[in-house]
């Protein structure tokens, strides 16, 4: 199956590891990712205010372009997924936003929210199947204890994201099992890392990350996985500075590529 792939700004620069291993692993699993031509940055945060139109346009351009190409739109970065999926929901459910956006963009065919937005993990679960990953695992991570860090963007608000149970998600733990490793549950796996607050209040982000990593370390995890470059940054700079809090953080696609031996 072929998806239109939306990498987003950070995957082209600081989060190349998230991107490149995702592309390679998809190929090995029989999935073709074709990068959406001329995609533009999603804006990294969803424009919550109902009267924001300009900040919704890049997402709509990507969505309409995938619709015109007859493809589902596959995302990988948690923030891109969150923004694009929520803007798509606005177009489907809010007449005023849909009208204003279409009046401005004036596309040949009006965009009415037809495109399906799929996160890479959802593709692994629903299109490839975790059993297939288990079968194709050349170097399973047997014996490794891995904590899934979900953060906020993939899960909330659940009535729009519909990603997994927002309080007790399982998709990343199922993924970890497919890698042959042991998923470890810990209390802060779906609590916020501080996100963009790190730019303005580094201490606040540091506190949030400390809650996350110390609660994971208490449960003897060998590493954490994430799908978000900003979570990666916050968790990494706030734990891997001191020996006693050292905890490797990986993008989930890095481990997937390693297990598939590519």
């Amino acid at each position, binding site marked *: 199956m072929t998806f239109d792939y939306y990498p*987003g*700004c*950070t995957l082209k*620069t*600081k*989060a190349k590891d998230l991107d490149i291993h995702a592309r390679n692993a998809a190929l090995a699993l029989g999935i073709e990712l074709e990068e959406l031509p001329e995609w533009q*940055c999603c*804006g*990294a*945060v*969803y*424009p*919550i*205010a*109902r*009267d*924001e139109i300009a*900040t919704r346009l890049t997402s709509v351009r990507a969505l309409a372009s995938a619709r015109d190409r007859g493809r589902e739109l596959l995302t990988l*970065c948690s*923030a891109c997924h969150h923004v694009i999926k929520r803007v798509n929901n606005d177009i489907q459910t809010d007449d005023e936003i849909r009208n204003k956006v279409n009046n401005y963009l004036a596309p040949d065919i009006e965009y009415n929210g037809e495109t399906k937005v799929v996160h890479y993990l959802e593709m692994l679960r629903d299109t490839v199947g975790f059993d297939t990953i288990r079968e194709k695992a050349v170097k399973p991570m047997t014996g490794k204890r891995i904590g899934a860090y979900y953060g*906020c963007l993939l*899960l*909330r*608000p*659940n009535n729009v994201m519909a990603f997994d149970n*927002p*309080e007790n998600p399982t998709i990343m733990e199922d993924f970890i099992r497919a890698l042959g490793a042991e998923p470890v549950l810990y209390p802060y796996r779906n*609590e*916020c890392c*501080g*996100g*963009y*607050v*790190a*730019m*303005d*209040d580094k201490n*606040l982000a540091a506190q*949030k990350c400390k809650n996350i990593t110390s609660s994971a370390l208490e449960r003897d995890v060998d590493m954490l996985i994430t799908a*978000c*470059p*900003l979570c*990666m*940054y916050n968790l*990494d*700079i706030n734990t891997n500075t001191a020996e006693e809090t050292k905890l490797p953080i990986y993008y989930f696609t890095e481990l997937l590529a390693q297990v598939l031996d590519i």
Partner: protein
Amino acid sequence: MHQKTQLQAETIRLISGTNTRKCMKCGKCTASCPAFAEMDISPHKFVSMVEHGEIDKLMASKSIWKCMSCFACVERCPRGVEPASIIEAVRQTVIRKQNNNYLRPENIPELLDPKIPQQALVSAFRKYSK
């Protein structure tokens, strides 16, 4: 209520898309908030202060710069009120005034480090500036 404060409160309700009257004051939003300890006005108070038209106080609050838009409060509200959307509406009302950006491009160089992802810069500008 004074006409100006009424209009301000109505604007917040409109752009947040939230009905503050549905709040039953259970405080679950504030209990869920990861930035609670840093806030001078906590999320449940935002809801009632919009209801009472106290928008100027909210606009001066430091809470609007501490909210991480993690949506824990929205997810856990038993009444479908969206405190995070109200906080965002107040934040927008502040930064939409001229010369009122909270983060300016000239602040950026001192905030940078080699690992910082583009996503952090883009989000911060979207949240703190117009």
